[in-house]
């Protein structure tokens, strides 16, 4: 097993002085920074005052025992992500089972075996590190609610069929814009542009799951299912157009090229799941609906309308959003013509 040797900030909680010294010295010997607490109350104070990567928690303590500390930590959004390894004597196996069921990360029997200590601590720190990375990733690409929900429910790595709305967004004639300006200007343009697009997506419970060049792909209604994702997707598209107007006003004031975008949305069944490696994973979706959304987006140039949607998306819209039927279009690679609708832009 590969083990990271990066030091962690650890808290050892035990009412017994010999155990505290032993664990603290042992873990310091592995390069970790270790603090100790003599009881549950002191442990919670330290956990709330500072940030820790891992807690080693004794079950048997006077006043507030290990279970109580564990439960309080798991119910506290600020503390629940810190892995907790329970420490207990061999004859308290039932208690250990109880702790694991309550949500402890792992357990160690006393007297503690030094090899197991090292292995379990490293494994827990590794998992903590991975969770921190995932959290960062999700915070960047999804709303706080979606990120929290995913972190709470855990990551199901297996794929599943979900009903969702898929959106593609592209900048029109981006290549010719790039050719006319300095590389630094292009990157600045993209960063400012994406900041606006992300805001529109996450503001409507969507998740951005791909960026490629000037293109963006977003999904609504997954990974966390919610009704109304068709409306959310279209409202996000309308907000993109609105935000872009303001963006263009600023650009024209600075004598810079204005940009136009095309947005395509399709709704249906997609295969969704996490793909990648443990170091870099992304929530993605594939299937006909994704393919269709990309084709519809591409069609915005031909139709000369900024937002195009398929019929199923259109059927999910409330009365205040108007869409005009453009008739059936036979897309490349599709057997059947698809009814396309242009969403009316508010003026």
């Amino acid at each position, binding site marked *: 097993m590969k083990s990271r040797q990066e030091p962690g900030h650890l808290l050892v909680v035990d*009412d*017994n*002085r*010999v*155990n505290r*010294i*032993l664990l603290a*010295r*042992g873990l310091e*010997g592995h390069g970790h920074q270790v603090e100790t607490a003599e009881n549950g109350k002191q442990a919670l104070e330290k956990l709330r005052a500072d940030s820790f990567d891992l807690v080693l928690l004794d079950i*048997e303590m*006077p006043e507030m025992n290990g279970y109580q500390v564990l439960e309080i930590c798991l119910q506290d959004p600020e503390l629940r992500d810190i892995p907790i390894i329970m420490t207990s*004597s061999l*004859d308290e196996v039932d208690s250990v089972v109880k702790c694991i069921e309550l949500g402890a990360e792992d357990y160690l029997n*006393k*007297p*503690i*075996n*030094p090899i197991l*200590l090292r292995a379990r601590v490293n494994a827990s720190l590794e998992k903590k590190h991975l969770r921190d990375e995932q959290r960062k990733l999700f915070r960047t690409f999804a709303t706080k609610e979606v990120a929290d929900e995913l972190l709470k429910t855990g990551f199901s790595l297996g794929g599943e069929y979900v009903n969702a709305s898929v959106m593609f967004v592209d900048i029109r004639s981006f290549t010719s814009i790039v050719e006319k300006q300095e590389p630094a200007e292009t990157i600045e343009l993209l960063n400012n542009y994406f900041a606006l697009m992300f805001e529109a997506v996450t503001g409507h419970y969507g998740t951005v799951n791909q960026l490629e060049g000037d293109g963006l792909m977003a999904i609504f209604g997954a990974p966390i299912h919610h009704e109304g994702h068709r409306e959310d997707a279209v409202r996000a598209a309308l907000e993109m157009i609105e935000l872009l107007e303001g963006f263009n006003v600023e650009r024209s004031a600075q004598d810079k090229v204005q940009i136009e975008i095309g947005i395509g949305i399709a709704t249906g069944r997609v295969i969704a799941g996490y793909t990648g490696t443990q170091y870099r994973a992304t929530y993605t979706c594939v299937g006909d609906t994704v393919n269709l959304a990309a084709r519809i987006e591409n069609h915005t140039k031909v139709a000369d309308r900024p937002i195009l949607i398929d019929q199923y998306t259109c059927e999910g819209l409330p009365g205040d959003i108007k869409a005009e039927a453009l008739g059936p279009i036979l897309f490349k690679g599709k057997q059947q013509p698809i009814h396309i609708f242009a969403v009316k832009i508010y003026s």
Partner: protein
Amino acid sequence: MPVIDRVTFEELKQMSGADFINELIDAFLDDAPNMISQMQIALVAKDVESFRRNAHSLKSNANTFGALELGMLARELEYMGRENNLDIGDRLEVLNEAFERVAEGLKEMRA
């Protein structure tokens, strides 16, 4: 049965680091008599919970150092406490004598 099991003691040294084994021994020699006297007090006061908890701590430390006999005696008392049985006969005296032997042994092993 040896007073202190060598294998367990060597593992302990490996874990704490040889430099810190004396600190651990000192903490134990300092704390254990207190645990035993707390058990004595609890016995008189019929405080089953305090009796059980101190027996538990002593058991835990004894096993950490490989003091297996002491650990077994403390464990027996912990279990009796858990079952609300403080009718322990002379077990506390026996335990105290076992501790004296462990204390001697540990003082010798102190580098």
